[in-house]
């Protein structure tokens, strides 16, 4: 049994630092392979950044059919915590666990730089340690990060408080609708974000503003034990 599972797809490339960031907050964590069909009893599942299946067809489109995604879906439906970072967010949208889609950046370039985002929702297993309205400077690194959804879905996300992270006005790096940088499902247990908190979780990286995502997961996991 582990507390946190990081799914490794062919083409994932942020899984090691994601695993280390989970271990750094005291969570027992391990990789699960995309061909596995069990999450080893993990409370938290993270779909890491990278280019699963070479981003062929569309980012996340093929990863969505990996055997492990059946277990991820069951875990999500049972209220388990599922966190998608960058390519993980794209996979969650492709699999329908989150609404909308991530399209080619508006200005066509791959964007790799720090951006400033505002924490809009703190009632999730990943953002519980932040205060609402906190601004974070986190790195983004993506070519397909422009969040797109119908006007109706965007209204619903706003009305239900499901925008988790928002780019500060003027800091939208990719043309995302309504400056959306991360969203949750209705219950809040499934969240996807484009920025990379695992690259900003330690003073050695000159930026630890992303550490709160991992301490939030640790607190959420301990609270689960308290209940059980």
């Amino acid at each position, binding site marked *: 049994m582990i507390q946190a599972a990081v799914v490794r797809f062919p083409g994932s490339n942020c899984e090691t630092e994601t695993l280390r960031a989970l271990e750094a907050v005291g969570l027992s964590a391990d990789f699960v392979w995309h061909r596995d069909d069990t999450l080893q009893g993990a409370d938290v599942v993270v779909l890491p950044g990278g280019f699963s299946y070479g981003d062929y*067809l*569309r980012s996340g*489109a*093929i990863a969505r*059919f990996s055997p492990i995604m059946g277990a991820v879906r069951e875990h999500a439906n049972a209220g388990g915590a599922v966190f998608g970072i960058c390519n993980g967010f794209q996979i969650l*949208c*492709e699999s329908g666990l989150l*609404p*909308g*889609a991530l*399209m*080619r*950046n*508006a*200005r*066509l370039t791959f964007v790799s730089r720090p951006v400033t985002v505002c924490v809009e929702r703190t009632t999730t297993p990943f953002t519980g340690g932040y205060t609402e309205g906190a601004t974070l400077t986190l790195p983004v690194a993506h070519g397909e990060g*422009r969040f*797109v*959804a*119908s006007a109706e879905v965007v209204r619903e996300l706003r009305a239900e408080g499901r925008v988790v992270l928002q780019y500060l006005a003027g800091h939208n790096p990719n*043309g995302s609708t309504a400056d959306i940088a991360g969203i949750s499902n209705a219950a809040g247990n499934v969240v996807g974000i484009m920025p990379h908190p695992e690259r900003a979780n330690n003073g050695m990286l000159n930026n630890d503003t992303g550490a709160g995502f991992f301490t939030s997961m640790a607190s959420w996991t301990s609270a689960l034990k308290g209940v059980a």
Partner: protein
Amino acid sequence: MRFRILVRVMPRAGLLDPEGQAVERALVELGFREAGEARVGRAIELTIEAGSAEDAGRQAQSMCERLLANPVTEDFSLEVIAA
């Protein structure tokens, strides 16, 4: 019977298509000053073994809905040709 399926997937009209815009600008730069409204999509070709053209079309339709096109951002069209 074998059928050849030609699938055409295009970004939905009205959605920003930066790739199409870049191609259009390049065409204009090249001297094709009348070029406009360029869109870039994707073509996928495959073979299906099916009892009839209708059956092949139904299978291809399902492939598009489930994998080949994203229902949020793309539209597709299909052509079924007896191989």
